């Protein structure tokens, strides 16, 4: 049983990362109905920028962190304004191809610019605030289960971002305007909301969330131009599983996928399933869920007037 809970905890940590990326996807999908295939590469690019910043600021992680998130947000906003805006209102597949183009650009420019060996990336170092120590130590022991500190950090970050976004969307006028835009762009424009600006902010927000995910993934997998590819695909699965228009669904979907993937790897027969097939089995589970609920667990069914 101890082993079981250990697997669950590790799955929850991985799942939080998938959930964060899925959240980034959902933020864009909700407002523009674009599946952003470049999300992972944007996060990877931001992490490389963060790495550059880290060197410039003498390895002060907590100086770099906000700067990196801001730079990522700027990158996201810029991308929306320059590349995505011209195809606004185009058929969905055209926009998908545009994001695939962005994928090619980010991925290749990064691998050209920051060539060489995979770069080690630091985990968030410990800080002392009001006599309390954060982010430090070896591991947390809960009964027989060991929770690695970086895993704990990941889960805490995911929870914090979720809460912050909830507060932002529910209790600020900007958040309200963004929700209105997502709900009905035409009416929002008539009410005086600058719809275009809301979309830019949505992309910026999403890129910032993605960057946080990138910063947390990089210590685990090392910093390379391919580091986000797997995570992005899992994030897609998570977002779809949770329902593409639901931020809560994204996180829940991520957790479900992280845990089930770990359990499938650990507890299915090795001869014909086992760890190599964990992705396949997870995808089958998602397919079954989709067949029962075609718009994901938390997704709303779109009603259309004919």
């Amino acid at each position, binding site marked *: 049983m101890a082993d079981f809970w250990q697997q669950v905890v590790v799955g929850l940590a991985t799942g939080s990362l998938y959930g964060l990326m899925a959240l980034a996807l959902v933020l864009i999908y909700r407002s523009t109905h674009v599946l952003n295939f470049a999300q992972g590469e944007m996060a990877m690019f931001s992490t490389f920028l963060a790495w550059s910043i880290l060197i410039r600021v003498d390895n002060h992680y907590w100086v770099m962190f906000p700067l990196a998130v801001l730079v990522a947000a700027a990158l996201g906003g810029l991308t929306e304004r320059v590349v995505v805006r011209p195809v606004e209102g185009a058929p969905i597949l055209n926009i998908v191809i545009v994001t695939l*183009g962005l994928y090619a650009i980010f991925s290749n420019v990064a691998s050209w610019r920051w060539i060489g060996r995979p770069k080690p990336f630091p985990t968030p170092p410990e800080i002392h605030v009001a006599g309390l120590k954060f982010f430090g130590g070896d591991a947390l022991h809960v009964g027989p289960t060991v929770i690695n500190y970086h895993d704990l950090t990941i889960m805490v970050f995911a929870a914090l971002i979720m809460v912050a976004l909830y507060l932002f969307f529910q209790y600020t006028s900007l958040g309200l305007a963004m929700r209105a835009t997502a709900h009905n762009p035409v009416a929002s424009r008539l009410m005086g909301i600058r719809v275009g600006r809301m979309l830019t902010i949505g992309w910026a927000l999403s890129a910032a969330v993605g960057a946080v995910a990138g910063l947390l993934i990089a210590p685990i997998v090392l910093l390379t131009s391919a580091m986000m590819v797997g995570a992005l695909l899992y994030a897609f699965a998570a977002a779809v599983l949770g329902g593409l228009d639901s931020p809560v669904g994204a996180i829940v979907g991520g957790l479900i996928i992280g845990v089930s993937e770990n359990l499938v790897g650990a507890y299915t027969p090795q001869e014909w399933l086992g760890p190599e097939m964990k992705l396949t089995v997870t995808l089958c589970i998602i397919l079954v869920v989709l067949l029962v609920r075609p718009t994901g667990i938390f997704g709303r069914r779109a009603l259309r007037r004919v």
Partner: protein
Amino acid sequence: MRRLAPLRTSTVVIFGVLAFFLLWWIPFSHVLPDVVPLRFAPYRTLEASQVAVWVIVAVGLNILTGFNGQISLGHGAFVAIGAYTAAILMVDHGWPFWTTIIAGGVLAGGVGFLVGVPALRLTGPYLAMATLGLALATPQVLSKYEGLTHGNQGINVRPEVPPPPAFIKDWFGLSLSRDEWMWFLVLSIVLIMLVLALNIVRSRIGRAFVAIRDSEIAAQAMGISVPRYKTMAFAISAFYAGVAGGTYALVHEYIAPENFNITMSMNLLTTIVIGGLASILGSVLGAIGLVVVPELPELVFNRIPGVNIPVELSWAFYGVVLILIMIFAPYGLAGLFHRSVRWVSSWTLRSRAGILVGLVVGVATTMVVGFALGLVAFLVTTAWVWAPPLVGVGARGYSRWIGALTSPLASAGETEAGPEDQSSQDHPDAER
């Protein structure tokens, strides 16, 4: 017996031009004078065969996505089924090559039908995700069940293809190399599949597909059985992918699980959107474009002494071209072509000669405009990347990168892919 759809003059001319281009120019270009930069290495013949395989899948996917409106990100899986069926039948059971191609197509079509049934419940991004799952699972399944598929070591296919008939040598004085003869075989498969596709999309079935795409409810009201035609579209499309897979095994002579990764499915979708949705011509143009565009910088600029473009930038350039085409030619290359034909023919005389002139000029315009767009895009990318670094610190040089869309996605089946994954593949649990 249903009559073949009447061939429109424009279709004949278009495919005539294409056939001439593909049939003569590329395979025999090494005997032609040195007039264009894009030519002459014998591998071009092989490349042309690869484009041809690509054309077959693209046409099939376009029937599903362009004509019927169902997005599939999983067509690589059907190509894999066709390729593996053909290869296993050829290598392990000694079937003649042409029967294996048909068998591959039929089996893939059957699987496509089975996938099409649950797909009825899903739409848009949810369908895209479900089919994406198919593409993701394919390499894993292929490498896991080694007894049937030979696992990660792949299958060496040495097809016993009959030699070129004697009349080619007797009448035309040409002795074909293996690649060149293969090219003619593949081209004939392509032509059969193209004619078939043209007839499908212009028949009752094709019109039903389009009606369903535009409005399921209206189609239903007209008496079209929506589930029947939607699954049929999946089956036909998968059949095309299966035939292409068999041809793929024939052309490449070696198949392995990683050939059929998610990259292939993504590239297929790109092909049809870039070429033009709901256009057979578009599928052909898109397939050619997808192969030619990433090579343009190298072909054009690396001929200038002192200029050497790293391969990563060629692929970044490809990304820029994708975006530019989507912004300036939302209906793809086929749309660009039709628009330029219409534009020219509006001020040529409304006579046959005028239309012919219009067509020729249209082809030329499409090529020139496409190339100019590409050139601008490339200059912009270069300027952007070569600009003084703002925050970058990496040393410049060349890595052994094999193109973005190949490498990073190649390991997509693994969690959190990265180069260090190569080592962790043996211990999938040890990755954390």
